[in-house]
């Protein structure tokens, strides 16, 4: 029956795709030219209170009642330690070891080296032996370690690269089937472990642990007057890239009002 109808119709009719192809050929180069593959964004920064306005009224101490409900959250960053301070006290410091990931411009070879602040010469390409330039450094990786800087701490990560913690926000290093753990998203995502092999034990990133601690601080002091504020105080030698990553951790933990301050030596 179908064959009969075809015959009556006078053979298969094909859609004329030429105009559509012409349109594509024009549109795609046009969009390719105007597309932004690397987008520039901005981060808002506040100057620390009192800076630039050192008048008598600006430096006057606020009343005690006002100070009682203030969190005064500060992240102190040095070349080997990050410490969180709030309510006039300090949380245990996060010690870290620094690794630099390089990508060679000539052959795209990737390698990671442990950073030693005493070493003044830049690392060398593993094959050609030439000295790498600063612009070939792609990432600065900070891994949490013990106080003696001898052992890097590890943590389980989900297949999506999220740090895994328990209900109290403590780092998890092993899971069994049926365990309940949390992925470090904001808010934390509950996971019931079905396949422990999905989780990967990796070095604990200082940025993830910082975000974890900041989220705990936020949960506890969400009613504080300055519950969205954080001051990042850094040492002179700290690289700007680290500051931006710490700002990201703060913003992901719901501290969008970021101020910058200098750590006096």
């Amino acid at each position, binding site marked *: 029956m179908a064959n009969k109808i075809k015959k009556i119709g006078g053979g298969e009719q*094909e859609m004329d*795709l030429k105009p*559509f*192809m012409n349109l*594509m050929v024009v*549109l*795609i180069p046009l*969009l*390719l030219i*105007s*597309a*932004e*593959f*690397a*987008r*520039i*964004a*901005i*981060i*808002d*920064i506040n*100057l620390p209170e009192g*800076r*630039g306005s050192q008048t008598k009224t600006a430096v006057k101490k606020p009343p005690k009642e006002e100070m009682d409900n203030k969190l005064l959250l500060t992240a102190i960053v040095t070349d080997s330690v990050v410490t969180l301070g709030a309510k006039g006290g300090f949380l245990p410091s996060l010690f870290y070891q620094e690794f630099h990931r390089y990508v060679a411009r000539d052959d795209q070879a990737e390698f990671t080296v442990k950073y030693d602040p005493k070493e003044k010469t830049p690392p060398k390409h593993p094959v050609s032996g030439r000295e790498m330039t*600063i*612009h070939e*450094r792609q990432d600065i990786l900070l891994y949490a370690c013990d106080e003696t800087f001898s052992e890097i701490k590890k943590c389980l990560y989900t297949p999506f690269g999220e740090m895994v913690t328990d209900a109290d926000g403590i780092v998890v290093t092993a899971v069994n089937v049926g365990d309940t753990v949390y992925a470090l998203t904001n808010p934390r995502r509950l996971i019931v472990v079905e396949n422990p092999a999905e989780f990967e034990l990796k070095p604990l990133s200082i940025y993830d642990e910082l975000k974890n601690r900041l989220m705990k601080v936020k949960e506890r002091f969400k009613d504080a007057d300055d519950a969205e504020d954080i001051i990042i105080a*850094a*040492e*002179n*030698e*700290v*690289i*700007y*890239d680290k*500051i*931006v*990553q710490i*700002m*990201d951790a703060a*913003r*992901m933990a719901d501290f969008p009002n970021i101020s*910058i301050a*200098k750590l006096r*030596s």
Partner: protein
Amino acid sequence: MEQRGRMPKRKRRESLMLTSMMDMFTIILVFLLKMYSAEGSVLTNADNLVLPNSISKKKPKEVSLQVAVTGDMILVDNQPVAPTEDARRIPNDEPNPIVAKLEEKLAGCYAQEQEMVKMGALNQIMGKVVVQMDKNIEFDVLFKVMNTCGSVGYNKMNFAVMEREGGL
């Protein structure tokens, strides 16, 4: 020999199969349309400057003063103003570190803004500055540049970063 005896095949009109190419083009088109930004960018990236990656997705809304700091030069609106070494040379114990040449240039820009307010071209002095800083610059230089901007009157500061996937 056998072939000669065969009936010659009727020539069939071969048409190009465009379906798979159309599929590919459609995918590329959708991807490019998603990437397309009708707004354009109000920020230009200075040469020899690698911005840090960040999760921030906030876009600069209006054109404002740009201060760029590379490993060897400080630029205002892409014009070299002072060597970065000038900022590094300021003693660390200086309570109010100011980069003199940068301050001079910024003061000029601020005066221009004031003039525009007087003429009615601007409602008020914006005092906004976007700081583009190379990701390998040390915090010391960043602080001195920020302090200089703040001392002139540019207190609303933004840091320019490269947008990374999975941001806020």
